[in-house]
């Protein structure tokens, strides 16, 4: 169930570090009740954007609002409604699992000890183990437990599954989704793990080198990215060079084949493709992961990774 007001709204959110523009004019809104995946390559500005949304870092210009409040002046009552789990799963190393829970519970009026225990149990955490002694997966579990126990309306997770093994990752996702299954709870998470995105997200935002290029539902995104394979018969010679097409994301060229990934192709795009003189044009079905990878990858014509390498030469000779 969605309500009218977005939980997160940003407008022209920009951040410079010295002369480097880390985030450039990000304008987006995150619908209440959504599971919003915030994607981008390393260094694209995801963490900085999250920190600005939470008021942990000041924006150079632009603004953002969370749960109706300006990010730079979030009152304690609003912070109580937002759960935040940082990329490094910050914890006080000297505290035991139990002490970590007790410490956090002193701050939150709606602390739910059952949730804390349930998540901690799911990750099989020993209450007397110090946080500094936990494995990476266990740290993530403890971090998630103290983030979920206050029953936040909005859960912001910065790459929560980074560095976790598949079992821990699965446990993390299950806990996350189970606890926030309630109405009007929103999850905003950044990730590099496309499987996770595919499994839980219903909305997506993609940062490409500090600029937000996509912000929409998963369905719309998947429908917007299409891949075409252009085949050329032996008699036609080498495939021609690809002209500048609107929305062209990626070109992969082979001996008798060109594969084009295109965003928002329309009739004009199809006409342009026809003009390339291919023997046949075939649309290649894309999974969400492939679509995201295609969208996030370097733009323009790319050769094979092995092209021009000794390995490729050897393979050709063979």
């Amino acid at each position: 169930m969605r309500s009218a007001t977005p939980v997160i709204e940003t407008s022209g959110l920009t951040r410079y570090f010295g002369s480097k523009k880390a985030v450039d004019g990000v304008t987006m809104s995150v619908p209440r009740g959504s599971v919003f995946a915030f994607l981008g390559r390393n260094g694209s500005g995801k963490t900085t954007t999250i920190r600005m949304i939470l008021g942990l870092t000041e924006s150079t210009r632009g603004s953002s609002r969370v749960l109706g409040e300006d990010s730079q002046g979030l009152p304690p009552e609003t912070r109580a409604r937002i759960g935040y789990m940082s990329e490094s799963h910050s914890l006080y190393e000297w505290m035991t699992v139990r002490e970590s829970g007790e410490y956090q519970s002193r701050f939150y009026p709606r602390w739910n000890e059952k949730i804390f225990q349930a998540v901690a149990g799911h990750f099989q955490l020993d209450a007397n183990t110090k946080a500094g002694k936990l494995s990476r997966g266990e740290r993530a579990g403890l971090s998630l437990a103290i983030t979920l126990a206050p029953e936040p309306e909005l859960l912001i997770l910065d790459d929560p599954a980074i560095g976790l093994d598949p079992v821990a990752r699965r446990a993390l996702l299950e806990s996350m989704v189970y606890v926030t299954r309630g109405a009007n709870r929103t999850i905003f998470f950044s990730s590099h793990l496309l499987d996770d995105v595919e499994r839980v997200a219903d909305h997506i935002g993609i940062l490409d080198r500090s600029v937000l290029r996509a912000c929409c539902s998963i369905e719309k995104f998947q429908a917007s990215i299409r891949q075409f394979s252009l085949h050329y018969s032996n008699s036609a010679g080498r495939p021609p060079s690809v002209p500048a097409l609107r929305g062209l994301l990626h070109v992969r060229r082979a001996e008798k084949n060109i594969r084009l990934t295109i965003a928002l192709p329309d009739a004009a795009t199809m006409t342009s493709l026809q003009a390339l003189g291919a023997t046949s044009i075939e649309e290649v079905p894309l999974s969400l992961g492939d679509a995201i990878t295609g969208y996030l990858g370097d733009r323009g014509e790319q050769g094979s990774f092995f092209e021009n390498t000794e390995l490729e030469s050897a393979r050709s000779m063979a």
Partner: protein
Amino acid sequence: MTNTGAFQAIVRKEMRENIVWAALGLILTYVVLIGALPSSSAQSSPNLISVFSITALAAIVGLMIGRAQGISENRGDPWGFLVHRPVSRSTLFWGKVAAGVLLYAGAIAIPAVCVAVWLSIPGRVAAPFDWRMTLPAVADLTCGVAFYFGGLLTAMREARWYASRALGIGVGFICATAILTLIHTFWLAMAFCAAGIIVAAIAARGTFIAAGQYASQSRTSRVAVGVAIASGLAVIGFFAVNVTMLLTFPAYQLPQGQQTQSRRYAMSSDGTVVQLVENSNGDLLAVKDLQGNLIDKYNEAAARKAVRAGVSAAQVNLNPVGIRDLAPPPVSGYRSAMDIYTAVESKNTQLHWYYIHDRGLIAAYDIASKRLVGWLGPDGFTDGATLPTNRFHGTTQSFRGRGPLIAFPDAVYDVDVDNRHVSKIFDAPPGETIVGADRSSPMEGISSSSDTTPGFDAIATEQRIYVQSEDRTPRMSIARDPKADGYGIAEVLQASQAPGAPMFVWYLPMGGSKFQKLSQAYYQPQYVSQIRSDGSAVNPVEVPPYGVLVTNVKPYLSDAVMMTLTMPLALNAVIYTLLRQFLTPGQSLAGWLWPSLFGLVIAGILFAKGRRNAFTSGQLLTWTALGFGLGLLGLALMYSLIDWPSKESCPSCKRQRVVTRERCEHCNEAFSAPAGDGTEIFEPAEM
């Protein structure tokens, strides 16, 4: 949960995290205090109060804990984990501070109290113990809190370590300098430290709340950060100027082999006032009259050496305030034992003697057993710890433990601790109050073995100066010279080799009124008169002010340049106003003109810099005024505080515009959204 519960949780967490630093501070304090414990010897009396002078220690421990608390979670994810919780950043800050100050206070106070308790037990040190001796430690402990906040501020500030980041501890340095060298009174020292703490705390809090940024702080905390950083710059500037002068000093030293010369005035053996010219080794180079003419009979070195032969003098205090306001705090005030006791010189190698002001008695401590063995009072010596009935009455101001005479408001006593004997030698006449007394001695050790002139005692009351023989026979009394009203010292001299062995009274301005400083004393004349036996003054001589003491070195141009460059205009104004009576109109004009011109140049630089970086009109005005008033300090302050924004070319007007404003400061054009490349996929937010 309540805010109280959260606050307690923060305090507990901070205490647990930083206890190791407190433990380190505690050990350090123990080591320093135990190392400072005095040992008793026949040569010197132990100085207990110096044990509790722990300014540097408090500063180090305060800085250490403050910095540790701030640095551990000041950026990145730890910062997010700290502050993303439903309490205000202010609550988090004060939670940290409560824990930090408790740890700091514990690290300093626990060892200090232990050492004080140990010293208070009889038999530990051969000296009286008084809890007031711990006041310097209390002041230093308080001063260390300013350093603690300085440490927090330094840890939180977004600045480079090798540049301005650590300047926030300047407030602590200013407080420490003030309580060590300027402030005599304990409560004034506490008030000064409290002011420093308030400034540093506001600066640290504002910086914490703004996550280290300066621009986004409230106006109050920006001012506090400015004051803190300016203090640090002033400290650095002070050292830089002194090091520069030290390094460049050879450039304007005197030619090789030539030494600086100085002059002073003295009574010669024939009873005239002469000018002595000496080099820096103390060699007497020439004897001149008051007009500066060489006196022929002193051309030979041997004659010069005997210039004051046969002159003996007793120097009496004329001012009830006495040395207290003249000497720096370590010598007087609450950082000195002077208000508690005065060590009395003795030839006895078994005992230390102390005049204890509150008791009005002289205490004897056995050096071997370190225990109190008896008391010396107006009625003589009493064995054991039993206090004698009769005491000395009133406050003695001028007694420094060296001469045999102790002056009280109503009487003067001759005290002979070696023979354990006390005798009253003078009673204050009705309606008069004694302010000082001294027994004569040969001037500067230059005496003649043939000199058999008997010594004398001089006693000053608020109205008159009395002179009597050591056998208490009155010799003369003279009304104090009204011209020397407010002067601090009178010397009663006798030139025994002059015809008739005349006596003189010489009024010296130093040590005078409460606000008079030593330097000013050199710009006031001295008065010397010969005194007849009936107390009348004859042959008065007005000795010109010393003025510039060093005579053969020209004023350094570099000094003037250095002052112009480094002294804020406001400080120049104060200095030149205070010294105006001693300066020529040209000097006064130059003193105002050069700093003003220099201030204008700096103000122009700051104005231009502000304009280029799109300062608001209020910011421009403030920084221009600071540039004019503070000179180089203002310039350095601006570069220390302002985080200069990046600039990029405005697509509309093509001029460079700062990236921090929503609109171009030149053409008011808004920033455009990032250019699209045709791959954008957006949909309206769901409603």
